[in-house]
Structure formats: C-alpha cells, structure tokens
C-alpha cells in the first residue's frame, strides 16, 4: 500500500529505515520536526538523497563559503551567474558569455569504466546546457593507479573509450585534460570532466520555477531504475514480499538521445519557450523539483504517475530518486506548452507535463490520486544539515616535510643528464598522451584552434571577430600532499599560466575537489587548507571561482587518494588568430626563459620517477609574479611577438623543451646560463616560468615588455632546424652537455602508453 501523507499522519510510530538510507538519527529527527509528523516513505526517500554528502555539500559548505565571499567579478566585469547556479557564467565581451564547470564521476568509473565515464560526460554537459548555452568543448582531467598495474589496463582504456564514445557522439571536441598515474588512485581512479558552453548575454537561463500556473515539463529519456541502490531498501519495505524487479547496478548512457536533447533544448531556448530549466542529475526528480521550486515562487504540484517509465515495476519512491540519464525539466508558460511539445516531437524527444508551479510554499507530489509528498522545498534543497567537521593537521605532516629531496643522488655530467632526460620523457606521467587523446574528436564543430598537447584548449567563438576562449585544467596532487594550501595555489597558478601562455586573458576558475573521507580529520584539514589556498589565490589573481564540485570518500580501504584539487581556468582571446602555440617551428627563433629557476625539486617528477620519493616543501608560490607573467604573455601575443610559448611545470624546462621540439618538429640549441647548476636548470619545477620563441625582430620589444613588468628573463638558446624536410636531422642540444636526435627523443616519449595499453 502506498504510504500517503494522510496515512503517515495517522501512523506516527511506524519504524522507518532511515539509517539504511544513510541518514543520521538527528537528521531523521529533524525531518520529523520540520514536517510535524513522520515522513512518508517518498518524503524519506527525497530527504535522504538530497541530504547526502553528494547533494547537500554538508561537510564542505562551511569551507566553500570562502569562494562565495570572493568578489563576483572577473577582469572583464561582474559575473553573470556564479556559485549556486548549475554552472557559472562570465562575460567574454562582444555580447558573448561563457559558462564552464568541472565535475567528477569517480566511483562509477571504477565499477564500470566505460559507462561511468560516459555518463560523467553526459551529466556535466546537461549542466552547461541548462544555463542556456551551446556546449562547445570538453576537457578530461584523469587520475589512475600505476600505469603498469593490471587493473589500470582495465580502467584506463574503459574510461577513455567511454569519454570518447559519449563526447564524440555528442559532437563535442575534447581539447585538453590530464592523465596522471599514482599508486594512491589504484582502486579509486579520478574521472573529472569539464564542459564549456557559449551563449549570448540575453540567453542566460536559470534554474527557477516562477509564475504561478506555469507548467512543469519533464523531457528526455524514460525513467528507469538507475542509480537507486539505497532506495530499494525502502521499496522492498513498502512493498512487502512482492518486491520490485531487479535494479541495474550500473547506469548506461545514451549519447544519441543526449545529442537530440541538446539540439531540442537549444531550439526551445531560441523560440523563447523556456521560463525556467534544470537538468536531472544526481537525485533525479527529487533534486530538480525541490531546487526549481525553492529557487522560484516556492511551490510546485506534480503528478508522479505521468512520468514515462522504462520499467513499469518502479515504485513512487524509486521514480523520485532515479538517476536515469538524459532527462531535463523545464518550466513553461501555459500558452507555450503546445509549441514546446511540438519542438520536442520534432526531435523525437519524449516530453510530458507533470504539473505546475504554485505559490503554496509546498512541494506536493501525487501518486495514484493521493498525496505522497507535501514538504517545504527549501528544507529539502537548500536548508539541509551543515557540519563543521573536525579537522587537524596530521602528525605525519612534519616528517613528510622534513624528508626533502636534497639528499637524493643527482645526475652529474652530460651523459647522466642525457639519460635522465630520456628516462623522464618516457615516464608515464610525462610521456605523450596521444594514445588517449587520439580517441577524442578534436575537430568537430570546426572551431578548435588549439587542442592537446597544447597548454590550453582554444575554441573560436565568433568566426567574424575571432573572439575565442581558452581553457586548461591542472592539479599536482603531490604538491598538495606536501602542503595543501600552497599545493592548491600551485594548481591554480599552473592552470592560469597554461591559459595565459596561449595568449588568452584568464578570467575565471572552476574546481573539482577530490579528497578522501571528510570524517577523517587529517583529510578534512587537507580539504580546508586547499580551499583556503585556492580562495586566497583567486583573490590575488583577481579571478572568481564560479562553480565546481566536491568529491569525498575517494579512498581504497583506509588509504585516501592524494588530495587532488583539479583547477580549471577559463580565459578569453579577443582574436584567436593571435593565439600562441607551443611547438618550435621556425629555425633561428631566439628562445627566452621567463621567471626564476630555484633549486626546487621536492615533490618533483624527477624525485618521483627516479627515486620514487615524495617529501619536503613544494616550490615557492608567487601569485603576484604569475599575474605579471600572464600580462607579459598576453601582451606579447597581442603584439605578435611570439612564435611559440610553453609553460614550465612537471619535469621542468627539460620536459618543456622535449614537448615543444617534438610538437613543431624542430631542434633547439640551448645553453645553460653562466653560474647555473645544469641539473636544476633542466629539472627544477619552480613556478611562474615559461619558455618562449620570439618572432623575427621581436627581441627589443619583448625585452622592453619584460622590463616594464619587472620580470626576470634570460636568453637560453635558439631553435635549430626547421621541420622534418630540413637537410640536418633535428636535435635537441644542451651545449657542452649532450645532444639527442629528435627521432630518439620521439621514440622515448611516444612509445610508453602504446606499449602499456595496446
């Protein structure tokens, strides 16, 4: 029998499975108090899923406030939407706006790599779509266990194929991302996906249900029993022995339907038929209805029986919780409903009117003619529990910091340096990622100006003016482990720098905070410090955090993953024809290094690859310097002074030279500056640095630019031989130390992943 509101009021003493649904005793008590009675089983289902860590941010909220306290302004002016919306929206000039956000799908991707990653793409794309934007690009920051671990052979190919299978079918170019291996991710890979969308200012949409009498329309896929593990507990209790049929353990995506959903939704926007909109992601209908209602006029009335089902045995509890993919919910003026449904029909997208917006201040759900839910939506969506979890700096932190890399044996002399460079270029973390990125369509939509292995993806937004956006993601978790505050700032600095290196002006930040259990005070300390570092860093750089995602409980057994805040930065190029690529291609171009190299090798890729060592303090953070460096790079690109530019990060200058030489097919002759230690020159990972190749005749102006910004700059060499057609085989030469033919370098750099995964 259905547990109605009326029935619940009459039967206060019925035992309810709140604990099995993940609620705490005090949380259950609070629900009873809010309602003035026990919840119905449908209400219990809604509260339990909406008050979960994933939906309520109950452990992170107190810290994330630091982001909302930042000025909501980019260097180009006020943000058009910020944290709290499905995704943040920033003005990029010329009447255009961009929206972007990164999300995680870590746990599902371990269980079923292909579908987990695929549905991760689907989810973030709907977030972007819900803002009114056309999705234009993806980036996929990924973390896996050791490259040679047997399980990585299962997880990595599946995840990559899943992202490719879904993203390519949607027609979204994947233009960047990361592939990082570390043993802490064995058993808990991180699959984060960032989506960027573009729209005109006037097209920004928000998630709210306003206008009493407006209709609530569910459109997209039919609802099945996906992702409702916990609720089966409820359902079976409610339904006695004649339990529901088996529920899927894995969600399967339908990218074709999502593609139709995108085109259909954009047409609905274009015709002005959408008064409010929300995607259905985690917590499905529970989330969409309660969030839309609480952000609007405060009330909604829906008839649950009308939801089109894929599996007729679903109970109302399950329908409310189902996380079936490829669904959206819109609020539509009554006069527009017919036209709305017609557009959906044109695209073969099922659409159903479920109910309407009310001003009762209640979310009311009917099932079989009876009321099964009657709750104040804000108590579900925005006024959930908030915890100040205890946090404490772990005791082991001091020992970690004390164990610096200074006692590790270093290569000496040309031959050892040469060998080290080749070994690092071939290490999984630094090796070419072509095996992965070749599975992604980078050309679709015809607007990709730069894509991997460039420092940032660059997408042309307006073909006439050349306006474009650049996006990069970064996050060196080893640095975060050593010092979460500084490490998070280094992640921010690197993504910011990667955007600036292409000539784009950085505007805004999104982040995905992947951490262990919030119930572990040590993890909570890492989290709190990382958030504080990121927020403080954004303040110095003058960029807002416009949205993001928190993923807790990333651990295998009791061991948490390395604390991994992934930071995404979005920038703007007024004219993408001015973008700076990273490949060395013009022989004779002078090479300059910007910034200061210190003997900073703690937490470096060298310490990791050669010694398997992690300890000490991360490189010094100087965000003021990062800002000036970005200004130089953006100005230099605008003035046409640069042939090429590449930021220095993992693997130091050596790695940057390897990548730029191989990308452009040219060699380089590099000289270690007087009085500099060649090892640190090549492998230190000091921040706020870049290497640039100057355009002909640009030297004087470029030096002047650096002087104006009071920035250290040094000539380190010259690009040697252009292209594969040249008579001399190109080489990377470190004067007086070693030379390596590009062919040998390429073999080392490009064989690693194919050898592991083919």
């Amino acid at each position, binding site marked *: 029998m259905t547990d109605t509101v009326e029935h619940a009021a009459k039967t206060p003493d019925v035992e309810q499975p709140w604990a099995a649904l993940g609620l705490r005793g005090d949380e259950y008590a609070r629900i009873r108090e809010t309602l003035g009675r026990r919840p119905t089983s449908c209400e219990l289902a809604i509260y339990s899923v909406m008050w979960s860590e994933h939906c309520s941010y109950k452990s992170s909220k107190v810290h994330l406030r630091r982001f909302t306290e930042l000025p909501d302004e980019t260097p180009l002016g006020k943000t058009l939407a910020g944290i709290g919306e499905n995704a943040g929206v920033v003005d990029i000039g010329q009447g255009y706006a961009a929206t972007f956000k990164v999300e995680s799908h870590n746990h599902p991707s371990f269980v079923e790599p292909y579908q987990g990653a695929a549905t991760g793409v689907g989810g973030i794309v709907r977030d972007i779509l819900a803002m009114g934007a056309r999705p234009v690009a993806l980036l996929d920051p990924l973390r896996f266990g050791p490259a040679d671990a047997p399980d990585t052979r299962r997880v990595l190919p599946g995840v990559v*194929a899943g992202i*490719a*299978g879904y993203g*390519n*079918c949607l*027609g979204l170019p994947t233009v960047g991302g990361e592939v990082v291996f570390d043993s802490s991710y064995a058993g808990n890979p991180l699959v984060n996906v960032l989506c960027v969308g573009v729209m005109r200012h006037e097209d920004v949409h928000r998630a709210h249900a306003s206008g009493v009498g407006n209709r609530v329309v569910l459109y997209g896929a039919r609802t099945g029993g996906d992702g409702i593990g916990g609720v089966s507990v409820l359902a079976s209790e409610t339904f006695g022995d004649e339990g529901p049929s088996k529920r899927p353990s894995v969600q399967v995506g*339908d*990218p*074709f*339907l999502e*593609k*139709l959903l995108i085109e259909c939704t954009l047409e609905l926007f274009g015709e002005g038929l959408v008064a409010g909109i929300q995607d259905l992601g985690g917590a499905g209908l529970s989330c969409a209805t309660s969030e839309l209602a609480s952000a609007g006029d405060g009330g909604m009335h829906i008839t649950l029986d009308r939801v089109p089902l894929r599996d007729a045995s679903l109970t109302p509890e399950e329908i409310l919780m189902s996380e079936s993919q490829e669904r959206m919910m819109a609020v539509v003026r009554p006069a527009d409903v017919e036209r709305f449904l017609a557009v959906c029909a044109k*695209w*073969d997208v099922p659409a159903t009117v479920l109910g309407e917006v009310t001003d009762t201040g209640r979310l009311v759900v009917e099932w079989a003619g009876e009321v099964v839910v009657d709750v104040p939506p804000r108590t579900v969506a925005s006024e959930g529990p908030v915890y100040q979890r205890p946090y404490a700096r772990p005791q082991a932190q001091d020992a970690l910091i004390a164990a610096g890399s200074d006692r590790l044996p270093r290569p000496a002399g040309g031959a050892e340096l040469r060998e080290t460079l080749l070994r690092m270029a071939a290490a999984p973390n630094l090796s070419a990622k072509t095996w992965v990125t*070749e*599975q*992604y*369509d*980078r*050309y*679709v*939509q*015809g*607007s*990709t*100006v730069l894509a991997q292995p460039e420092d940032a993806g660059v997408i*042309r937004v307006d073909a006439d003016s050349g306006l474009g956006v650049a996006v990069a993601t970064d996050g060196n978790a080893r640095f975060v482990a050593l010092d979460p505050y500084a490490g998070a700032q280094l992640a921010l600095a690197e993504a910011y720098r990667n955007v600036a290196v292409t000539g784009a002006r950085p505007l805004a930040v999104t982040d995905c905070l992947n951490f262990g259990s919030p119930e572990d005070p040590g993890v909570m300390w890492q989290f709190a410090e990382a958030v504080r570092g990121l927020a403080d860093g954004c303040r110095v750089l003058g960029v807002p955090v416009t949205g993001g995602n928190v993923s807790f409980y990333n651990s295998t057994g009791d061991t948490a993953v390395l604390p991994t805040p992934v930071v995404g930065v979005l920038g703007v190029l007024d004219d*993408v*024809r001015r973008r700076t690529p990273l490949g060395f291609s013009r022989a004779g171009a002078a090479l300059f290094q910007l910034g200061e190299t210190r003997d900073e090798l703690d937490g470096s890729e060298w310490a990791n690859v050669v010694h398997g060592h992690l300890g000490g303090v991360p490189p010094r953070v100087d965000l003021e310097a990062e800002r000036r460096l970005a200004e130089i790079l953006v100005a230099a690109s605008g003035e046409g002074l640069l042939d090429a530019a590449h930021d220095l990060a993992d693997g130091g200058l050596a790695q940057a030279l390897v990548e730029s030489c191989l990308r452009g097919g040219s060699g380089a002759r590099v000289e270690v500056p007087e009085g500099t230690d060649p090892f640190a020159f090549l492998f230190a990972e000091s921040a706020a640095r870049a290497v640039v190749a100057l355009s002909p005749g640009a030297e004087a102006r470029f030096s002047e630019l650096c002087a104006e910004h009071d920035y250290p700059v040094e000539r380190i060499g010259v690009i040697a031989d252009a292209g594969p057609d040249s008579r001399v085989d190109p080489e990377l030469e470190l004067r007086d130390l070693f030379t390596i033919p590009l062919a040998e370098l390429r073999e080392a750099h490009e064989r690693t992943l194919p050898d592991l995964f*083919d």
Partner: protein
Amino acid sequence: MRVGVVTFPGSLDDRDAVRAVALAGGEPVALWHADADLRGVEAVVLPGGFSYGDYLRCGAIARHAPVMGPLLKAAGAGLPVLGICNGFQVLCEARLLPGALIRNDRRRFVCRDQRLRVESSASAWTSAYEPGEEIVVPVKNGEGGYVADERTLDSLEAEGRVVLRYVGGNPNGSARDIAGVTDASGRVVGLMPHPEHAVDPLTGPSTDGLGFFASLLHRVAAA
C-alpha cells in the same frame, strides 16, 4: 551552385560542410532528414556524425530516412553526391557505393591528421586535384575500415574508382588502404577522411580539403 547538406538526427559535421561549401563559392542549402524533396539543389553532401547514434551499423538507419528516397532517385539520374565519413557509410548502406565500413581494426576511435594520396581526379569531387597529389586531412572514425570482397576490390582498382588512399599508415584497417571510392559514373563519391575540417588553417591541419568542394563548382563552371 546550390549544394544541399543533409542533417540527420545525430549528424555532427553538417555545419562544417555548409561552411566548406560556402568557402568554395557554392550556395549551401540545409536539407532535413524528414524532407520529402531536395529543394532543387544541384548536388548533395551527406556529412559526418553519428546518425541515429550509429547504433546498429553506421548509416544503416539513416539510409531509410525520408530524404533518401528522392536522393537515391536523383543520384541515379546523375546528381553529384559526396558522402563524408558517416555519409560514406550511408551511401554504402544505400548501395550507391560498393562495399561497407566496419569497426576499426584496433577497435578504437581514431582522430588524427592523415596523409592521403588522391588516386583519381576523374570524379566530380576530385577534379581539382592532380592524380597522385598528396594531401593532409583529418580522419576521425570508429568504424572506418573499408571492406568489400576481393572481386569488387579488384574491379574498383581496375576501373580507377579508388579516388583516395591512406599513405604513411592505415588508421583503421581499410582494405588496400582505401580512403575513398566513387561509383561507376564518377558522380557519387564516399570518403572516410573529413575534407570539411581542412578548409581553414586556423582550425584544421591544412586547407587541402577545399579541393573536394571546389571540384564540383569548377566542373560545373567548365561545363
């Protein structure tokens, strides 16, 4: 010249094809899969993408779309048709072109800048190239392996109907490195590579793809 570009549900590169037609000096005309006629166009491009999700076999469901009725008829009467990637698959499914395209030999999607040799400039869509000319154009496909029985392959070769071949590595296991073929009339051409992504140096590896679209216009101008 009015060149139709068909959009099926799941088409992705239709806008690129429109842009390429316009860049080559043609007048692109959008055609919808459910259209009952061809709106008087003088040639048609079937673009790349995942029509109907490519869930059964690539192009197998799109082949039955309403617009394909008039298209097949017009092609029989000499209408030039270019199928790119998914469009090639549709043309094979519709038997306008011989053979079929199956899952790549390495069983992964592949997107790369591909060197190609134009083997024949006798078709309506390749006349702007010199025979033997090498070009670089993106390939991107998961089911791009061209197959046909040996006899068909032999006759394609003998009749000069292989218009495009992969060089410097076969990305998908296609028989005899075949990247594009034409029908007996030389008017219907199918290509696995994507010339519409190689029309602007800013967004493609080259502008080598323009010739396919220019061929058509140039042929008509010459006629």
